[in-house]
């Protein structure tokens, strides 16, 4: 299974991460709409890292579960963490006034969504899209 990652330090790394994601999604066999969903989700997560944590990384992995292929994206940072996770998972919530649609949007775009965060230590978001 292939695995690659992009360090997120500048705005340009957001572009690199989503291009990598789109190429990987295309290679796995996702259609145009799912490619757009995956690319958009990566873009949102990479932008969150750039805006709130300064730096982090996006890991993109091809996965296979009993013959079903998928793409897994892990966004990891050592930023400030999220104090009230329930609040940020509320629809329409965004601390930067619409800069980034926020995590509920990412969750809707993907099949699986998992977040772990510790204040002052960082945040890890794992998302998966399965190829149907």
């Amino acid at each position, binding site marked *: 299974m292939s695995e690659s990652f992009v360090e997120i330090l500048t705005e*340009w790394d957001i572009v690199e991460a989503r291009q990598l994601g789109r190429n990987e999604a295309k290679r796995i066999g996702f259609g145009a*709409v799912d490619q*757009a*969903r995956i*690319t958009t989700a990566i*873009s949102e997560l990479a*932008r969150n890292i750039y805006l709130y944590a300064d730096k982090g990384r996006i890991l993109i992995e091809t996965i296979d579960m009993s013959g079903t292929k998928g793409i897994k994206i892990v966004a990891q940072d050592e930023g400030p963490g999220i104090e009230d996770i329930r609040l940020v998972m509320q629809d329409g919530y965004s601390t930067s006034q*619409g800069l980034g649609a926020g995590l509920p*949007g990412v969750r809707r*775009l993907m099949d699986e969504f998992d977040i772990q965060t510790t204040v002052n230590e960082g945040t890890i978001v794992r998302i998966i899209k399965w190829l149907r």
Partner: protein
Amino acid sequence: MVLNIPILKLQDCLIVSIQSELDDPTAMQFQTDLLQKLSEVKARGVVIDLSCIEFIDSFIARILGDIIRMTSLMGAKVTITGIQPSIAITLVELGIYLKDVITALDLEGGLTKLQKALGGRKI
């Protein structure tokens, strides 16, 4: 590198076809360039064609929304054309809505709708 997006003038309208994926700095530069050009040529309408664009994230959508509002402050109207199914789906799933904008399937439809919105004058 920031890409320069060509802005064409046709009668009293500006026409823009965005041909490549927008990164953040390019989108912000485009916003300034478009408003500058609008003021220079005293255009009344703007058509932005997105038919070559395969994905828009919340940041680019916000810039587009800002452009629509800023253009309206300057007395002109914006039409967005050629939004692909994948973009329509992801934007709605993300929870983003572009408000107060005329949309059309293609450039031709966009120009017709803009013409109507501008009071029926020929473009």
